């Protein structure tokens, strides 16, 4: 039995005659019992018809204060020369041969609901569920649960509003507190019906309200798109064109405009109840999306001709590969992801090697079709990366949370980094020079943004600290300079001085021209991601 009260009768009556489907009637009666929506729509319709035909035998039991209204509603039931009014409900249910009953029911079933444009009719049946499940299965995702998301045409809000105005008085009489928000949303009812059907088709995968795997169903209804257009004239400020949107009539904008527009003005421009549509909505392609998976690790770079990210100048590729591509390729194929975003704790130049324990990096994998990997499997992915190239090596590869990723970026400036630079000096190096450099502690540099990066970074003077240095003599004009510095120190510029824009610099300290021939990052002292024992 449908959970309807006597007070619902006028709403049911009005909506059915306005060409609304049975489930939309339930919505407007604020029925929140999900089972009521799941039962076959023609059953619901029959029950509704029986319900409005019932003689007012409950009337006596109803409280006395609504009596005047009840009388009024019973009149409305009798008044219109409607076929349904003449229909004997018991016959309609029991006697299949009753011609009048058949005609009425056929008409109801075949016509498209003026309110949901068919979405709660044939578009949420087993056929649609099979279509969803086939799409999901064909894309071969790994998942335990799924969440169904529904995108509906914006004009549905306009029709909903029109219908609300049509029955506002009756709904209000049902209960003082009831408002437009209490009407069950099409989206909600659609999910109540579809979730069960999809679960059944997927052999037990739970369709839930929150899941990392989302299946998106979208409907459009081109014939009634113009429903929204009058709103642009009435509330122009709600419909400002934006770069990314194809149409200004977004659901959000339409909802906002409907909140603003007065009832009188709405009724001037739009029929109430809404007109009968010529056909039902068109289902669009089903979109599957798995939430991103985040991966972290550390990489070494052993090559002086490998950029960190693809290097493109004037649309032309400069080097054939990059650190991120070498790391990403095996990961993308293991996770069967659509794409990735790479980030790291700082970056090295194309001609700089990263040795030691490597540089922490993290990757967001977009729409991974596979997302669960054991520690052993992650180790295998790491091995695949390491076997694929001599230029890089990865360690500590692991799955992390989105939140943990921020650990890498936070405190980037406070962390220290160690380097080794091969330095050339114009005048020959004396013992005093070596001990002088070795004795320097916590030297603060004023670094103007290097000319090398000034085209893309703001001009500023940044203070950076070199904590310590040590010299390893090579020959009278060459030495290896070890440095421990604050992150963000530009080492090359410290050595050659960058036209005197980094002060002090090694040229000033050694009172001769110096230049940097090679640079290696020895350590990036960030304690994330956690090390994974070999």
């Amino acid at each position, binding site marked *: 039995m449908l959970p309807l009260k006597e007070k619902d009768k006028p709403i049911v009556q009005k909506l059915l005659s306005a060409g609304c489907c049975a489930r939309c009637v339930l919505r407007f009666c604020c029925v929140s019992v999900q089972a009521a929506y799941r039962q076959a729509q023609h059953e619901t319709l029959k029950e509704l018809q029986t319900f409005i035909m019932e003689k007012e035998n409950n009337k006596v039991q109803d409280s006395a204060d609504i009596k005047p209204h009840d009388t009024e509603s019973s009149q409305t039931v009798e008044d219109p020369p409607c076929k349904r009014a003449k229909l004997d409900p018991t016959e309609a249910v029991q006697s299949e041969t009753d011609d009048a009953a058949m005609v009425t029911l056929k008409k109801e079933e075949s016509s498209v609901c003026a309110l949901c444009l068919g979405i709660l009719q044939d578009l949420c049946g087993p056929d649609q569920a099979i279509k969803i499940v086939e799409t999901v299965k064909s894309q071969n995702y790994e998942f335990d649960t799924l969440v169904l998301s529904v995108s509906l045409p914006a004009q549905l809000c306009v029709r909903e509003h029109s219908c609300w105005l049509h029955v506002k008085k009756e709904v209000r009489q049902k209960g003082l507190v009831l408002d437009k928000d209490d009407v069950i949303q099409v989206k909600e009812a659609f999910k109540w019906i579809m979730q069960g059907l999809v679960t059944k088709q997927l052999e037990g995968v739970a369709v839930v309200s929150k899941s990392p795997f989302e299946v998106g169903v979208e409907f459009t209804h081109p014939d009634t798109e113009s429903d929204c257009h009058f709103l642009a004239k009435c509330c122009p400020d709600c419909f400002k064109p934006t770069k990314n949107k194809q149409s200004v009539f977004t659901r959000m904008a339409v909802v906002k405009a409907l909140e603003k527009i007065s009832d009188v003005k709405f009724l001037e421009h739009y029929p109430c109840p809404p007109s009968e549509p010529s056909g039902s909505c068109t289902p669009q392609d089903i979109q599957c999306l798995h939430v991103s998976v985040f991966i972290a690790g550390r990489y070494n770079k052993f090559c002086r001709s490998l950029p960190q990210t693809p290097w493109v100048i004037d649309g032309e590729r400069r080097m054939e590969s990059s650190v991120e591509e070498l790391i990403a390729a095996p990961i993308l194929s293991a996770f069967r992801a659509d794409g990735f975003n790479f980030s790291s704790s700082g970056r090295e130049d194309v001609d700089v090697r990263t040795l030691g324990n490597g540089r922490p990096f993290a990757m967001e994998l977009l729409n991974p079709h596979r997302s669960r990997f054991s520690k052993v499997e992650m180790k295998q992915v790491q091995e695949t990366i390491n076997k694929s190239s001599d230029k890089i090596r990865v360690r500590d590869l692991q799955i992390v949370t989105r939140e943990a990723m921020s650990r890498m970026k936070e405190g980037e400036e406070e962390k220290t980094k160690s380097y080794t630079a091969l330095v*050339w000096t*114009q005048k*020959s190096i004396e013992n005093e020079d070596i001990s002088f450099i070795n004795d320097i502690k916590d030297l603060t540099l004023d670094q*103007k943004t290097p*000319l*090398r*990066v*000034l*085209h*893309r*970074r*703001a*001009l500023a003077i940044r203070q950076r600290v070199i904590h310590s240095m040590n010299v390893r003599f090579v*020959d*009278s*004009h060459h030495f290896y300079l070890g440095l421990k510095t604050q992150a963000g120190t530009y080492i090359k510029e410290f050595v*050659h*001085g*960058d*036209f*005197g824009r980094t002060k002090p610099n090694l040229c000033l300290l050694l009172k001769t021209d110096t*230049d940097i*021939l090679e640079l290696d990052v020895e350590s990036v002292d960030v304690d994330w991601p956690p090390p994974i024992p070999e």
Partner: protein
Amino acid sequence: MDCVEQSNADAEAPSVIGRYFTRWYRADMKGKLCEDHCILQHSNRLCVVTLAETHPILQDGRAIKSINYQISNGCSRLNNKVSGKSKRGAQFLTDFAPLCRIMCSDDTEYTIYSCIRGRLLEVNENILETPNLLLEKPSTEGYIAVILPKFEESKSITENLLTREEFEAVVSKRSLSQPP
């Protein structure tokens, strides 16, 4: 042994300019003989304006009396302020925009020009304090200014400048016609 090593070091003397920059020249700026400018263009399109080695300021052991970035009553290059990645607020310069005036100890004054179109990012304030930088290291620490050409003009702005070879030809022709 020591000597061999010395010559090796000289031969291999690395240079930041050689690695990252292309040298462009404008000879006889504004028709004034020998007032040659050298523009160092970085591979990232940024330009550093310097005096060419042949500029009169750098000849005959002259000294510098003053350097003035106030190029008119209303405009000082020292007031140039840029902010953000997009370098908002930069003075926009055309080829013949004066950058500074340099007075030598013999009271001759020279004007240094931008030579290229672009946004003025900075002028070298170090040479105000230590004018000798200009004489000792005219192409590095003694630079005049840094200019960022428009992205779409990064190639075309050097079209009416001379390459190093062309400039050297001009200089050798000059010394032939005016024997010292």
